[in-house]
């Protein structure tokens, strides 16, 4: 019976959303976990190692949350296929641990009844058992176990010793006949099957569980305010304002520290190495390339701190509830609100935050429009051009014209995002059905610092490791384009004017001349691909202005002399739409798991940018701004 002891034992965690499954997974595996993707799909595969008290080594995998094995989404299909042993790259689990929130057993018990048909050894783990006891939920464990016909174990994932009983039971089960698999009689359940199983679950609850007469009063009272049609929306907006501020301003000192640190490192390398290609590669390619990726880390961590806290608290589902109608009118899911808002800081954390949207279609729409939100990297470009071309005057005595143009640029971004998602809903997804909005609103729970820290750590690692490699290689490519071939001996123009980037800039002239761009702008667009704000420095280089941040004003003056107002407006409008950020494209590629969606984003944004700049330029010329 205990033949499994020889090799590692495979365990899988299954459970409904909000069952605390991931917290239990973190408690059991600690830092010995690996996050990857299942082959061919963008579903996150979370696996970890642990040891039972008897010294058995266990491979634990955390399967995506689901209410049944019907497999309504790619995530749920993975859960079904792993449980049924249909995934070639996964071992069929030796034991299924079905995790349930002990305070809310009803839906989990229905899942247990369905899981029993699979014939794999199964244990019900009653998680958050401490909260259930405190709230007065009385569970007759022996009766529950007898009615279900499977072992029932309690656990408190957030307490250090809260998984002892579970670990102990794993050994017992491995050694007993409970560990032997039975026959698989699972069939996709029909509504009648689901109904019968739920009735059976309700019958078992009636005999084995006594619920307190009153529901959780704290949640009821909090929701009376937080879900209030008016107060709830105001609180949500206030919360988002704080979050937006935090991402914007708390991250600023850290970001400056990182970028000046990398600048200093670059200078050190510059001084240390002999002038030449290697020096340029290390300083401009490697160090500034890595720096331009790392600089986003503070924003990402702060944003995810908020998201994880709100998710853990149980507020995220409520935010989706409050925003559903508003977002829905534009073809977006209620949950898309937070990712889109984060994209005002930077589209990268915004796109990563779309993981809270479980429907793939809704998530893709959100990813597609996230880069249209005006990110902070566009601000240097906007301010440079606005201050050079828009007179610093007030209209109606109090509205700053420059501020108004800035606001207009933001508004244009939002309006186009809503427009694109509306079009995507009606054209791109036409053949798909509108998914209904149905969501459990879990009781509020205090966020657990350990779980939050673990979540932040995972996000940071994922961002640095996987995005870092792609983004970094793009940075090196851009450096290469801007540096090769080398300028000839005795060249007087800046080196970039002799490079491939300049050749591309010249080659693009016939294409970009109709939107009012000269070749210098085209050249600046290429290093601007690394990060939009780099375009400002690149313009300085192309116009042969001695560099540094303080040169921004000089660049502005040079531009004012060399560009027409129509060209300046066309560049501004270009930056609303242009897919001018290699990092964002790399993250889209990674999050969607396909080059196709990266290409779609790039293509439609480029088309929008071109069309909008074209119209702006020609209207401006017609109005005499040429």
């Amino acid at each position, binding site marked *: 019976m205990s033949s499994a002891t020889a090799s590692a034992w495979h365990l899988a965690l299954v459970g409904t959303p909000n069952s605390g499954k991931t917290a239990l997974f973190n408690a059991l595996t600690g830092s010995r976990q690996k996050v990857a993707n299942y082959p061919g799909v963008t579903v996150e595969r979370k696996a970890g190692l642990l040891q039972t008290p008897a010294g058995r080594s266990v491979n634990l995998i955390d399967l995506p949350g689901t209410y049944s094995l019907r497999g309504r989404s790619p995530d749920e299909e993975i859960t079904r296929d792993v449980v049924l042993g249909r995934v070639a790259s996964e071992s069929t689990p030796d034991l299924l641990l079905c995790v349930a929130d002990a305070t*809310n057993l009803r839906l989990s018990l229905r899942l247990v009844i369905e899981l029993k048909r699979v014939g794999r050894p199964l244990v019900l783990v009653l998680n958050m058992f401490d909260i259930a006891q405190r709230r007065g939920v009385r569970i007759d464990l022996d009766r529950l176990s007898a009615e279900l016909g499977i072992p029932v174990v309690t656990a408190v994932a957030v307490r250090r010793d809260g998984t002892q009983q579970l670990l102990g039971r794993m050994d017992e089960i491995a050694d007993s006949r409970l560990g032997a698999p039975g026959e698989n009689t699972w069939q996709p359940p029909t*509504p009648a099957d689901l109904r019968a199983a739920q009735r059976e679950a309700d019958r078992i609850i009636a005999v084995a569980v006594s619920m307190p007469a009153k529901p959780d009063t704290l949640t009821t009272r909090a929701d009376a305010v937080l879900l209030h049609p008016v107060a709830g929306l105001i609180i949500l907006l206030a919360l988002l304002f704080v979050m937006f501020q935090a991402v914007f301003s708390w991250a600023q000192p850290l970001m400056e520290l990182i970028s000046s640190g990398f600048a200093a490192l670059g200078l050190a390398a510059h001084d240390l190495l002999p002038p030449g290609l290697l020096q340029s590669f290390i300083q401009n390619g490697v160090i500034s390339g890595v720096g331009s990726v790392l600089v986003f880390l503070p924003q990402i961590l702060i944003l995810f701190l908020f998201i994880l806290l709100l998710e853990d608290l149980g507020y995220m589902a409520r935010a989706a509830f409050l925003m559903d109608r508003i977002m829905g009118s534009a073809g977006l899911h209620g949950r898309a609100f937070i990712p889109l808002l984060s994209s005002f800081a930077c589209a990268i954390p915004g796109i990563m935050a779309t993981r809270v949207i479980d429907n793939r279609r809704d998530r893709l729409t959100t990813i597609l429009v996230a880069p249209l939100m005006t990110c902070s990297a566009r601000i240097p470009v906007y301010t440079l051009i606005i201050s050079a071309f828009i007179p610093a005057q007030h209209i109606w005595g109090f509205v700053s014209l420059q501020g108004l143009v800035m606001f207009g640029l933001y508004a244009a971004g939002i309006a186009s995002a809503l427009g694109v998602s509306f079009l995507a809903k009606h054209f791109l997804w036409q053949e798909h059905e509108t998914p209904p909005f149905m969501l459990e609103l879990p009781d509020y729970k205090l966020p657990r610092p350990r779980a939050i820290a673990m979540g932040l750590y995972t996000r940071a690692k994922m961002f640095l490791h996987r995005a870092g490699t792609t983004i970094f290689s793009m940075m090196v490519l851009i450096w290469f384009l801007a540096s090769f071939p080398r300028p000839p001996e005795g060249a007087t123009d800046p080196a970039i004017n002799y490079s491939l980037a300049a050749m591309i800039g010249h080659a693009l002239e016939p294409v970009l001349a109709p939107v009012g761009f000269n070749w210098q702008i085209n050249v600046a667009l290429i290093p601007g691909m690394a990060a939009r704000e780099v375009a400002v420095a690149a313009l300085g280089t192309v116009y042969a202005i001695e560099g540094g941040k303080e040169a921004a004003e000089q660049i502005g003056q040079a531009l004012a002399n060399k560009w027409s107002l129509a060209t300046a407006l066309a560049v501004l409008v270009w930056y609303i739409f242009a897919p001018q950020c290699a990092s964002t494209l790399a993250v889209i590629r990674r999050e969607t798991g396909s080059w196709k969606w990266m290409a779609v984003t790039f293509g439609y944004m480029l088309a929008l940018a071109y069309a909008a700049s074209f119209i702006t330029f020609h209207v401006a010329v017609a109005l005499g701004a040429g």
Partner: protein
Amino acid sequence: MPESRQPVNVRSSQPLGQAPCGFRGRVDAIEVPVATTGLPAWEIESRLIELGFVEGAHVEILHEGAFGRDPIAVRVNHATIALRRREAMAIFATADRPA
């Protein structure tokens, strides 16, 4: 009175999608009208059951959204579920008698 419940239920049953906030009652039936949403009726029915809407479950509308009183948050036995009124039209319930 319990003995007269069955026939009364059938007649006084109303779709939860039309019930006001604060409505309390018991589910009599899940019947998805054909072609109200993009998904097949059995799929909507399955999802509603998976979230606990089965005959006999106690429901109470706790909250509703600001625009068009949609979506609604419904207490189903001991859990709270958010859904749109459009999908809630498939849930037929009879109001509790005032105590």
